[in-house]
């Protein structure tokens, strides 16, 4: 509620601040010296502080990539943990510059909420998790009629859940909380039989339960959940910077540019790689965007390419061990596809 209150103050009562902010997000960000990034309050693989208090995850790395593009330094970013309910108000009111919080891209959010989604950093779908030890014999979501289901309020998950049980003529008992850790605690304590959220989230949450091995994720995926970062409407320049940061991460992976080899790659003979890394003579790609010409170099140095970011946070390099699946590049049978940088 605190954030909503702040957001309202920002958006509504004090129009001075809001009209000043409308000048240009890029100018504001440069003036304050860092990017304010709205993230999850704690979801393993997407945004969660590690044991040293440093934020880890694919969503926070994306914000670091934008900071690297703007400042040449991936550390110039501050994180604002937001609950599902607070997130849109925080972005609308200007409390955060980017919302990178495993947020599903929907038409309503693009239109009525005044947001612009920049792309899909993670293709997900909603799933169900149960405690297999307490509920032996349940191996399909279609057997869940009559169950108590834990879900976070104000999410697309909550709506899909209602639709799924309704369309399959099953009953359920919603147990709804506002904060993710409250849902986790309720499920772990046995207040509900089923936990539903995006499947990647389920794998992440399972690790935090008291006995992860007892819990299984059911095979059904009941929805499309394209998760991606969003910015406010009305500032095309900022929208382009954030959008092309995402495309740069994908293009870097496609061209084989990694955190380790990015400096060598600058001397590559491949004209495409030279162009992407800003090594072409008199290039204006970066400056036209509003950043320096070596922006892609800075991004990759800060967080690596998309594939590295994925493997480090949710893939084989993480405890989650999620396969690339549909999040692979289009060249490898996945859905991740970026327009060319030229």
């Amino acid at each position, binding site marked *: 509620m605190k954030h909503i209150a702040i957001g309202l103050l920002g958006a*509504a009562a004090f129009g001075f601040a*809001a009209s000043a902010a409308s000048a240009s997000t890029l100018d504001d960000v440069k003036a304050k010296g860092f990017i304010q990034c709205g993230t999850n309050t704690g979801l393993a693989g997407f945004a969660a502080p590690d044991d040293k208090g440093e934020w880890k995850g694919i969503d926070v790395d994306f914000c670091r990539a934008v900071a690297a593009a703007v400042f040449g330094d991936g550390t110039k970013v501050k994180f604002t943990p937001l609950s599902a309910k607070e997130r*849109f108000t925080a972005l*609308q009111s200007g409390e955060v510059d980017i919302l990178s919080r495993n947020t599903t891209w929907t038409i*309503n959010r693009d239109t009525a909420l005044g947001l612009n989604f920049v792309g899909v950093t993670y293709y997900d779908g909603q799933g169900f998790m149960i405690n297999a030890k*307490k509920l032996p014999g349940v191996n399909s979501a279609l057997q869940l009629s009559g169950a108590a289901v834990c879900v976070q309020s*104000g999410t697309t998950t909550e709506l899909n859940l209602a639709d799924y049980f309704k369309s399959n003529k099953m009953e359920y008992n919603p*147990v709804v909380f*506002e904060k993710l850790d409250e849902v986790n605690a309720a499920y772990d304590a046995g207040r509900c039989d089923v936990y539903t959220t995006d499947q990647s989230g389920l794998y992440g949450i399972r690790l935090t339960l008291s006995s992860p091995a007892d819990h299984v994720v059911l095979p059904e995926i009941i929805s499309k959940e394209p998760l991606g970062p969003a910015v406010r409407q009305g500032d095309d320049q900022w929208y382009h910077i954030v959008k092309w940061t995402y495309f740069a991460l994908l293009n870097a992976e496609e061209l084989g540019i990694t955190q380790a080899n990015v400096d060598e790659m600058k001397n590559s003979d491949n004209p495409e790689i030279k162009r992407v890394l800003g090594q072409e003579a008199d290039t204006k790609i970066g400056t036209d965007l509003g950043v320096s010409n070596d922006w892609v170099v800075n991004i990759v140095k800060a967080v690596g390419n998309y594939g590295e970011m994925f493997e480090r946070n949710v893939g084989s390099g993480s405890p989650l061990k999620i396969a690339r699946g549909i999040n692979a590049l289009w060249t490898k049978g996945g859905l991740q596809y970026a327009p060319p940088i030229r």
Partner: protein
Amino acid sequence: MASQEVLREEPSRGSFINDPRVRGIFFQALVLVLLVAGVWWVTHNVIANLTRLHIASGFGFLKGRAGFDISESAIAYSSDSTYFRAILVGFINTVIVAVVGIITATIIGFIVGIGRLSHNWLIRKICTVYVEVFRNIPPLLVIFFWYSGVLAVLPPPRESINLPFGSFLNQRGFYFPRAIWGEGSWLILVALLLGIAMAWFVARKARQRQMATGQPFPVFWTSMALIVGLPLLAYALSGFPLSFEFPKQSTFNLVGGFQVRPEFLSLYLALSCYTAAFIAEIVRAGIRGVSAGQTEAAAALGLRSGSILRLVVVPQAMRIVIPPLTSQYLNLTKNSSLAIAIGYPDLTATAGTVLNQTGQAVEGVVIMMAVYLALSLITSAIMNVVNARMALVER
């Protein structure tokens, strides 16, 4: 005040600028203009900024399909209902927990408050500890204490604690048999209402008789016989139409019967216990405020200590108690918005979800504020009526 009245009576000296009445009107007008300008400025800014940010505004969204389910609803509600109905469900839930909480808090508060003045050392100390514990802990923690500390450690549904009369207690809540009213059961309700009306009449007559002749009448037992006996008689006459649906074990939960969810239970218990501590102090202050001479005089007339309390002390204490009691009732109603922490679908929770699903933050918060304001004003109005009836009638 006195100096103003003196000034007013003097004729204005010279310039009308020095006239206190003109000055008074001027400053009142100035405040009014500033207030209107302030409200206009805020409203204008909100509308302008919403338009600039391309955010839809207006209250039209209330007619849209909600799409989400709510765990507890006193009225018919499904995901096909409108956003307006979702907010209405939350509002009713808030009213339910507030009303039930206020009744319980008042009962506990009066018992503890009187207990603190008891001559019995143990009762006095227990009541003091109760007040000091609950008064000095934030209400949110009391809610968590009940939710996580007491109700969450109950056994899972398959190992429910069996209670008498086919009731069960587990971590999903308290289950008890649901009464199913058969044909002719309206007679029982009529008998109950009749019993209450007759009991009230008997009490009135008995008081009149005692006033006139000094003869007491066993009002309590007669009333109980009427209120319990008449419905029982009607039950037998209409051919025992009542049956019960008992909660039964299923794959996941107990089904059937009536379920009181732990979210409601913990919010209700926490708000009642917390507010009762404050009410106890108010009651104690009220009783202390009645002069000791009253008690002594009543004792000298030969009244027993129970009668002294009931007939002499409490009626006078009520005049001191009711105004601060109103504040506590308002506090309890507003504290019910803490329900959001444990997922009880009150007004704040459902309106918050609607706010989030539609993105109508300003409208959502305006609705919440208006509803809480209206609820508080209604509570105040009711308590003012009670206060007016209780107040000392000056002769």
